[in-house]
């Protein structure tokens, strides 16, 4: 089955699930109303009789079951979305390697920078939000939580990569993983900016995988960088990471970090606060100031 038909099918399923969610909601509406009414009646009568207690217990049990049912449909829908995205990603990677392999063809024109920037913003915006079950703590690569030490980034994953630039300096750039060699423990990555043009072979420690989920500030604030923490953040409208201090962490799931970039052209050594999406903020290991 082609990826296109598969995606179309998944979209149909997703559509069904969304409709189901609404049905589920309307169904549980009645019970919730009942709970509210019971509480009101108890208040007017100003006593908690065993009758009400039993009644409420029953009602709440139902409500809980309803909520769980709705929740599981929503999770199912999220899984579908993830599946669609991974299919699209596979397709993109396949198309990319097909392009690179046909070596003798004149290369296609690279896209305009403005378009690339838009794509990067879009990718940050559509990064899935991690929604754990009650009591579950966020996994590695959710928000500020780093990958485990033996983690190997997959092909197509976006990473911050420390590369050498012309005059011996080093810079953290936004890159895409091409492959990983277990024998040499080295990554091959492409500079996101000049797709397929500049390939770097780098050791593990020069690679920081970017988060794969956004952390929800309302439920998992511990998975976010906190104020004044030193990070590497993608400078807005560029493809380079620079050292920055967290100015304010996001308050809501869709919010960005506000960060202060180290910038000697400002009197106090930091830029004014700039917004950077969770997707493009990673921990900074080196603590010494350059």
């Amino acid at each position: 089955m082609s990826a296109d038909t598969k995606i179309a099918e998944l979209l149909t399923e997703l559509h069904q699930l969304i409709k189901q969610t609404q049905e589920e909601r309307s169904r549980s509406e009645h019970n919730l109303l009942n709970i509210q009414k019971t509480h009101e009646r108890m208040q007017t009568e100003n006593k908690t009789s065993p009758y009400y207690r039993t009644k409420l217990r029953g009602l709440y049990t139902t409500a809980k079951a309803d909520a769980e049912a709705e929740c599981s449909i929503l999770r199912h829908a999220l899984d579908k979305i993830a599946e669609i995205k991974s299919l699209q990603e596979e397709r993109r990677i396949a198309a990319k390697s097909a392009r690179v392999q046909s070596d003798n063809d004149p290369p296609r024109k690279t896209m305009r920078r403005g378009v690339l920037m838009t794509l990067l913003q879009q990718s940050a915006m559509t990064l899935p939000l991690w929604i754990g079950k009650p009591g579950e703590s966020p996994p590695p690569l959710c928000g500020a939580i780093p990958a485990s030490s033996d983690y190997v980034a997959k092909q197509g994953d976006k990473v911050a990569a420390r590369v050498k630039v012309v005059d011996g300096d080093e810079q953290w750039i936004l890159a895409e993983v091409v492959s990983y060699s277990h024998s040499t423990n080295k990554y091959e990555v492409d500079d996101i900016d000049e797709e397929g043009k500049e390939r770097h072979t780098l050791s593990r420690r020069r690679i920081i995988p970017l988060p794969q989920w956004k952390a929800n500030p309302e439920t998992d604030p511990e998975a976010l960088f906190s104020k004044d923490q030193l990070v590497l953040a993608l400078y807005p409208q560029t493809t380079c990471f620079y050292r920055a201090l967290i100015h304010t962490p996001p308050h809501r799931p869709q919010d960005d970090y506000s960060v202060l970039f180290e910038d000697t052209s400002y009197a106090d050594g930091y830029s004014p606060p700039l917004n950077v999406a969770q997707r493009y903020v990673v921990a900074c290991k080196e603590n010494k100031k350059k």
Partner: protein
Amino acid sequence: MRSTATEEVSSSSVDMSDPAAQASQPRLPQTQSAGSAGSGNAATGSGSGNSDPARPGLSQQQRASQKKAQVRAFPRAKKLEKLGVFSACKANDTCKCNGWKNPNPPSATRLDLQQQAASLSEPCRSCGHALAEHVSHLENVSEEEINRLLGMVVDVENLFMSVHKEEDTDTKQVYFYLFKLLRKCILQMSQPVVEGSLGTPPFERPNIEQGVLNFVQYKFSHLAPKERQTMFELSKMFLLCLNYWKLETPTQYRQRTQKEDGAPYKVDYTRWLCYCHVPQSNDSLPRYETTQVFGRNLLKSIFTVTRRQLLEKFRVEKDKLLPEKRTLILTHFPKFLSMLEEEIYGENSPIWEADFTMPASDGTQLGHQTVISPAAVSGSPALSKSLSGGSSTVDSGGVEPIPGEKRKLPEALTLEDAKRIRVMGDIPMELVNEVMMTITDPAAMLGPETNLLTPNAARDETARLEERRGIIEFHVIGNSLSQKSNKKILMWLVGLQNVFSHQLPRMPKEYITRLVFDPKHKTLALIKDGRVIGGICFRMFPTQGFTEIVFCAVTSNEQVKGYGTHLMNHLKEYHIKHNILYFLTYADEYAIGYFKKQGFSKDIKVAKSRYLGYIKDYEGATLMECELNPRIPYTELSHIIKRQKEIIKKLIERKQSQIRKVYPGLTCFKEGVRQIPVESIPGIRETGWKPSSKDKSKEVKDPDVLYNTLKNLLAQIKTHPDAWPFMEPVKKSEAPDYYEIIRFPIDLKTMTDRLKNRYYVTKKLFIADLQRIISNCREYNPPDSEYCKCANTLEKFFYFKLKDGGLIDK
């Protein structure tokens, strides 16, 4: 609770010592009842703060006319009683009583209007004379006049309430003056005339309405009929809003503008109250529309705040708007207002000139007609319309429209081009209109609220959208030594100085500061969220006919969003308006790319004598120039071109559905060919296309003859000893970066293939490919390399051969 409050108000009014207040006292309970019947809505029309800003007084107006209808339906006796209250006692000359007072004032409990009319013999509570003595003058007065007077009575009562409720002193005073005026008119049975130093309407010419309509013509006549109609509707809506808008009080005005002298505004405000606002609900007074009696001065005073309130109101109420209105308002209104703002505050905006007319060029005439009825367009060259419309921005000099000529052709265009344009004009107007309808789908315009655009969107598309939504603004600002600069302008200048010094680290900060604050320099500032995020600092030399671009920058975190392009386009339009058509700038190595994209070139057409000694010369920088075409609306250009492409695409689709034959697409563009002769496109002749006769005469007539000549020539070139580097395409494995540097690769093998495929239908194409082999080689290789030496010999050889074969002159 409510009833006690009511009583308090009425009792306090009884205590008022003012005779006017006493006169209306018996009427009070009824007024009160009308108020409370509206269950607490009484404040809505009171003229104080929280009423509906777009339609203040509407409900009051409705209530007033209801009330008048009610009163006029009274029996005559009751009418006389009502008028008696406002009529002087005529019992004898000494009686000073100026209105009959009911000895039995109706109590709050029997407020019903059906109550018995007082008898004519009923004595006045104040002077003791009968009601008849007060109304004797009305005996022989027509019913019509009585009704007119009764209308004034209702208005007087309402004004009394307004005086009472109004908290602003200035407004209260005016209400009180009008109250007294109307009372006097009832007494004297005369027509109310506002006297004093206010003058009579119209107060300004041209009026706001005229100015705004001029603005629409001035700015939008180049647009397509549908969009022009949109702008026209926006202007109508804006005028309507202004007519019902509540102006801020002189006190609020003084606080907001920090101006010590609020007197001129106070005069306007008083005029507005007397002639526009109060008459809306008070039809005894002659009513004028705000936009018809006031002009630019009032608009200057109120525009800033009105604009903010309007936008805010629409934002808040966007869900209540009709969907089609919503599109209109949310997407176009902010931009419309920003553009209008420029014309209101701009120093020499032509829209306020008494004799404003559009230059009599084809495009603009059209514009005027189509605003009123889009169907009226006919017989005009459809596709050139949007381009030629740019002339609307010229106000004098520059390009003089030539009478009788459809469209002035730039010199570069030859006669053949002119012909082609006329051929395009042959497409029937109905067809073009039909096609326009299919591409101007309002739903497509609205789109999702996102700044994510398709990869092939124009570079400035995002910026244009953001400006339309009011996210970004463009202002030309500058420092002034003669008048005190406003604080906001100074803050923006500081912001600009910061942006320039951060983005141009090689420029000394002091130098930047000096120029940005120099009164001879101006800066086009890009504002987002009230902060400067970019700008172009420039100096105009009107006498020399050019402008120097001094600094140009966008703050680093807002780059690559098309702002730079949009800035430059705004600057171009600004200069066209001011009739300067050349930009000169010294570009450093990083800036050359940007300026090239904005239409600058290193080829300088302005005479050296005109700029030498004027422009600041920078060492190591390259002088670049951009010539402006006053017919191009630069900020809309990419959009217009996109539209034209869409139209042509649709026209092609239509033609295709008529002609069945399908040819495979052309592949030569993929191979790097920039242009091919039209006649070589398969099937083109079937569509009715004919090559122009001029081309034909020059060319070898028989394609086979040309083919054989070229085949022969190519064979000779291929056997030349120095042809070896050019025999086949360059392999990427041998020169990895070759295809990044060389955009249009070509080689002798490819040329042979092209020849076989009958691609070389003119010698021009063949020569161009040959020449490209040479120029590619020189671009990629160092001049003293072996390859370049080969290229040099080969070039000499084939030019010799070309001349020999009679393919080129000399």
